[in-house]
């Protein structure tokens, strides 16, 4: 296990440099947009991670409600936190790209609106977690809320396909609307970011177990002092 982890970290460290190489030097400029095309790879990677992270949150919440095992709640919380961080990244890169491609920082396009709603929903989820006492109750409330908030994820994914949106559709049922070397760079960026997510998730889960352990220790200490 420990060996696997260090190999994974090494792969992440070297792989991300390779991804950066592909993004900056290995892929061509866009015919219309020029070098600003390169923002897109980061954007796409962040989007993939956000989608995966929220899916993990929803699945873990469902499993928690089914089994009432608190470790699922830890998974849900950690994944939601990291997913929200990546959604922030998604929005920031999207705003920068929008400025370069559309000439405006922000517009109330369906896709952009849906993403902001998703971001606010999971911020609310994290806020509720922060403000709720009692592990069981927090886990129950957060799980229901996560499942409700997860409704926004498929809607967000489908917005550019259902409504007229100015957001480009890259993945269609007929293949990719891109040059092949761009597709390679895109998938490399996605893989790199997912690896980063996995590493981050491990750290966050370990820290969460530490937090809970320290809480337990504190409560025990209080109990001992009373006796």
């Amino acid at each position, binding site marked *: 296990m420990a060996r696997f982890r260090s190999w994974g970290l090494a792969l992440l460290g070297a792989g991300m440099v390779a991804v950066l190489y592909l993004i900056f030097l290995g892929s061509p400029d866009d015919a219309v947009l020029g070098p600003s095309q390169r923002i897109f790879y980061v954007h796409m990677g962040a989007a993939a991670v956000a989608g995966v992270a929220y899916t993990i949150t929803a699945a873990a919440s469902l499993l928690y*409600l089914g089994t009432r095992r608190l470790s699922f709640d830890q998974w849900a919380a950690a994944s939601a936190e990291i997913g929200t961080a990546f959604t922030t990244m998604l929005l920031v890169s999207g705003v920068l790209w929008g400025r370069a491609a559309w000439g405006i920082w922000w517009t109330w396009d369906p896709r952009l*609106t849906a993403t902001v*709603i998703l971001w*606010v*929903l999971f911020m*609310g989820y994290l*806020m*509720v977690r922060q*403000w*709720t*006492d009692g592990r069981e*109750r927090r886990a*129950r*409330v957060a*799980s*229901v*809320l996560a*499942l*409700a*908030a997860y*409704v926004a994820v498929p*809607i967000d994914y489908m917005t550019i396909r259902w409504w007229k949106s100015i957001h480009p559709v890259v993945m269609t049922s007929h293949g990719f609307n891109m040059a092949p070397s761009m597709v390679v760079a895109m998938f490399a960026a996605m893989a790199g970011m997912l690896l980063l997510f996995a590493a981050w998730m491990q750290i966050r889960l370990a820290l969460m177990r530490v937090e809970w352990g320290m809480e337990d220790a504190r409560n025990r200490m209080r109990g001992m002092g009373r006796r």
Partner: protein
Amino acid sequence: MQKIWTLFVKDMRLEARQKDMGFLMLAFAMMETLVFGFALDSGGRMQTDEVAGILWMGFLFAGMLGIVRLFGRETAEDVMVGMAMAPGGRLPVVMAKMAVAWVFCAATASIATSVDVAVFQVPGTRVSVIVVLVMLLGALGLASVGTLLSGLSLNLSGHEVLLPVLTMPFLVPVAIAGMEATGAAWRGGRPWPWIHALMAYDLIFMVLPLLLYEFLWEV
């Protein structure tokens, strides 16, 4: 069914005696539209879309005011425990609450719409069957989202403050679809795509509490 009806009548009777939820919503919706009327004293120069936006904002804020009270009035004396323990389980409680919320939201929507049309005399704004349908669907969305979140956040510390903040993002899709559909109906455009979106969203949030009602509150 019997339990749903009993609880529904109970809430209506409470409302008739205390007037602390439905009447509050109606009064708030009316005041808000009037305040918008003073602030934007436009003399009929406003676009139908703008009027639709104002209408939905007033409706949403009034609705959220009521949603906080929806389960809030059951906190005293552990009423929730009693209602859940009574024969029939929790599902009827959730459904009755949803019905109550829908009735009050629909009443608020009708008041808000008529005051809105009267205050902003935009040529062409009229209350048609389609607008009534849109408002009823919007009220349904508000009621179902509100029932889920209100039941969930009950007993959380500071839920009066937490609930509106939490509800708002869930209601933004309802608001967008409702505004667009109302504006389109008044303009003579095509409201149906938005009405379908509204229906789909309502359906999702009506089914969700029915799936998760077991976990909404603990006894």
